[in-house]
């Protein structure tokens, strides 16, 4: 499927759709009751998969398109800012961690999860101008690690098994 350009476009389209659906599924799970921003990061399964199987460029295409589409469908300009900041930082960290070659998929996914939350908090501080949000950082760090391990192990399995 990856041999032709059309195949490549189709594959990316499918991955974006999958990431989008996972974003929606995630929005149905009310995990953010105590601290806003706590989430599983289900779309990250697709991003990590793309990063390992298709490369950094594809991972960027998929996650950037997902962020834009999610903001159009469910969000607003403010949420776009948060998502974009989290996405860019998360992906940058994951690419670097993968390049270092010292970590498994779970390690890469964990750092991505934590970076995503850190990016969102940084955006919130910049956009809202309140420092109190840093109060959430430790909670989001722990939740990012936990979710990152789960997502990483799941992604590792898919990276190994799924044929494209």
């Amino acid at each position: 499927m990856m041999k032709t350009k059309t195949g490549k476009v189709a594959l990316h389209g499918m991955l974006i759709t999958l990431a989008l659906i996972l974003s929606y599924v995630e929005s149905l799970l009310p995990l953010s009751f105590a601290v806003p921003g706590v989430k599983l990061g289900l779309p990250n399964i697709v991003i990590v998969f793309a990063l390992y199987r298709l490369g950094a460029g594809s991972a960027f295409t998929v996650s950037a398109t997902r962020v834009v589409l999610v903001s159009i469908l469910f969000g607003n300009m403010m949420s776009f800012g948060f998502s974009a900041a989290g996405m860019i930082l998360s992906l940058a960290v994951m690419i670097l961690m993968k390049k270092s070659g010292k970590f498994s998929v779970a390690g890469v996914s964990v750092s991505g999860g934590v970076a995503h939350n850190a990016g969102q908090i940084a955006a919130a501080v910049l956009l809202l101008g309140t420092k109190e949000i840093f109060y959430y950082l430790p909670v989001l760090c722990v939740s990012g690690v936990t979710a990152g391990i789960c997502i990483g192990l799941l992604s590792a399995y898919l990276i190994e098994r799924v044929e494209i």
Partner: protein
Amino acid sequence: MKERKLRKNDILLIGILLVISGLLFFFAYIAKDPGGSVTISIDGLEIMELPLKDDIRIELSSEHGLEEGHRNLLHIKDGKAYIDEANCPDKVCIDRGEVCYEGETIVCLPHKLTVTVTEGEKQEIDGVSE
């Protein structure tokens, strides 16, 4: 495939991140404990303690121990204390904005005035232990 299993580095990374979170929790807890009252001191002398839960507007003047002519208007609103009017030359006390966490202080140096958030009696539980 070697990517599947957690490696030593991964465990290390997770450990470090959890330790950092622990430290952040700790500091956030220390730094961000909401206070129960504010203590007003003039020239190092405690003159009164006001609970943060009651909204109040108080004009500090010579009758509280400030020098003749000095004036600071202290507000307590929604659990936060701030000075919004003062005739000191630098207005640093006004610029300080709202304080509500334990240890936060408003200082008006020219008037030798400090307003510090203290533990006070926060909730019923703390009240019982007195």
